[in-house]
């Protein structure tokens, strides 16, 4: 190549200098031993976090009103899951958009969740026969949509004063149809652990899919309250944290950073905006060898002089 055509940020000079002995296997072995010992040392000194998973049973026993309120929100369609949109349901205008792109809406409903039926009505149907509940579910099934809506609305209106006394959900609602018994019996079902099982297994004996259970739990306030104590909320840089005093996913610092600033932290499309920004930045870094100007930064900042200081010192 002629000197004239040499591009310093693309081409590399051919090395015509000296060589030093290099034992690649010895280097690899030493590195493996050192890393292994360091791993053992860190594990002995710091261990690892393992806060037990919460269950619907533990949640509903610790915070029965929060549970019952969440169950009601599944029934009246105001919970996060009930109004999520794709991939769970067809809620209009719920999908996040990146300009004209509504990617999740385009993909559609692939994991269908009918919050009222999947989280409340169907689990109640799995309970052993109880006269009041059986009659209530029969009334619910035979009622028109407008009647159900009216019942739920009346119960919702009165639920601001919801209490949990003597193992019962107490709401002074009138003309709420079977809703009081449904919410009360679902809470009892949750508190004895049956709802955990009902949401997990569905119609199958084996299951490793916790989608329904996790969506229901995350609709409540209890999970977030526990997370806040461990600095796991989004505004607490929680994307890169984990329980306890551990480094967590420190490599996500930039991703987490965007969640702290406007417009990302105030936009309804925050998630897709952060993701798109990160994809753009990552693509730029990945394609750096082909980006004039940006690929010159290493040469112009001269940080390389620190790395190859011995080389340059020997040449001076």
């Amino acid at each position: 190549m002629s000197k004239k055509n040499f591009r310093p940020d693309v081409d590399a000079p051919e090395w015509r200098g000296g060589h030093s002995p290099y034992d690649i296997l010895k280097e690899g072995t030493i590195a493996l031993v050192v890393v292994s010992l360091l791993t053992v040392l860190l594990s002995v000194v710091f261990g690892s976090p393992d806060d037990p998973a919460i269950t619907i049973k533990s949640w509903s026993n610790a915070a029965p009103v929060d549970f019952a309120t969440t169950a009601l929100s599944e029934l009246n369609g105001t919970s996060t899951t009930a109004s999520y949109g794709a991939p769970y349901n067809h809620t209009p205008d719920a999908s996040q958009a990146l300009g004209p792109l509504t990617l999740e809406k385009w993909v559609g409903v692939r994991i269908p969740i009918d919050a009222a039926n999947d989280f409340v009505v169907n689990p109640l149907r799995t309970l052993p026969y109880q006269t009041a509940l059986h009659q209530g579910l029969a009334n619910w099934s035979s009622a028109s949509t407008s009647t159900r809506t009216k019942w739920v609305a009346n119960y919702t209106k009165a639920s601001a004063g919801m209490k949990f006394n003597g193992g019962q959900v107490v709401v002074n609602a009138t003309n709420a149809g079977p809703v009081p018994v449904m919410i009360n019996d679902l809470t009892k079902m949750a508190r004895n652990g049956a709802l955990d099982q009902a949401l997990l297994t569905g119609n199958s004996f084996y299951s490793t899919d916790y989608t329904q259970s996790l969506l229901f739990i995350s609709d409540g306030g209890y999970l977030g309250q526990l997370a806040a104590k461990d600095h796991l909320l989004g505004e607490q840089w929680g994307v890169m944290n984990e329980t306890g005093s551990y480094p967590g996913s420190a490599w996500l610092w930039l991703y987490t950073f965007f969640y702290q600033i406007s417009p990302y932290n105030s936009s309804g499309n925050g998630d897709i905006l952060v993701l798109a920004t990160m994809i753009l930045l990552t693509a730029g870094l990945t394609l750096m060898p082909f980006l004039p100007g940006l690929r010159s930064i290493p040469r112009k900042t001269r940080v390389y002089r620190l790395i190859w200081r011995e080389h340059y010192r020997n040449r001076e």
Partner: protein
Amino acid sequence: MSTSEIDRQWTTRLRRRALEKLPPEKTLPDSQPSYVSSWIYVFGVTTISALIVVIATGCVLALRGPTWWHGSSIGHFVNSLHLWSVEIFFFAMVIHLWGKYFMAAWRGGRAMTWITGMVLFLVSIVTALTGYVSQSNFDSQWISTQAKDAINASGGGAYFNLLNFGQMLMWHIVLLPLVLVFLVAVHVVLVRIKGVVPPFEEDAGQQSAGASHE
């Protein structure tokens, strides 16, 4: 069998091509250019060493299943080894990445080496995420329920469901490690073929007429 027939064999041609691109002295070198003299160079091999520990400890965890470590002090310790080797892995990888950035290590026909390294970093992040949501503890619950929103917003949540423990575990212990190991192999082979990028030549008048380029 004639010599020409042997020459035409796929196996023969592949072996010759491989030896031409990567002769033994490049595969297992016993010397290196004298400019390779900085602590920054140890972070590549440190990353691979940490990955070996990550995979080994992950295999031990796999022996007894995904919930073993919750009820066993030995299992918990192995989980700690797995966690800290992951932390070392990312620490070393990030330093390696930025070191290579400031060396402009893509020069001289090494763009694919840089790109495979970046892709490795991204695949590692996804692998770590699937690990976090496969722990079957509070962290898993919180991380999966929060991270799902970004995946869903991209349209990917319909196919890559962070709330599906079984799916995430399979990605974490089978699919993504296969991709990672493959990419590491490609990355290392590219490094061995192309060698370590030489320093910038600061005196423009001394640029070599034989400089390599893309």
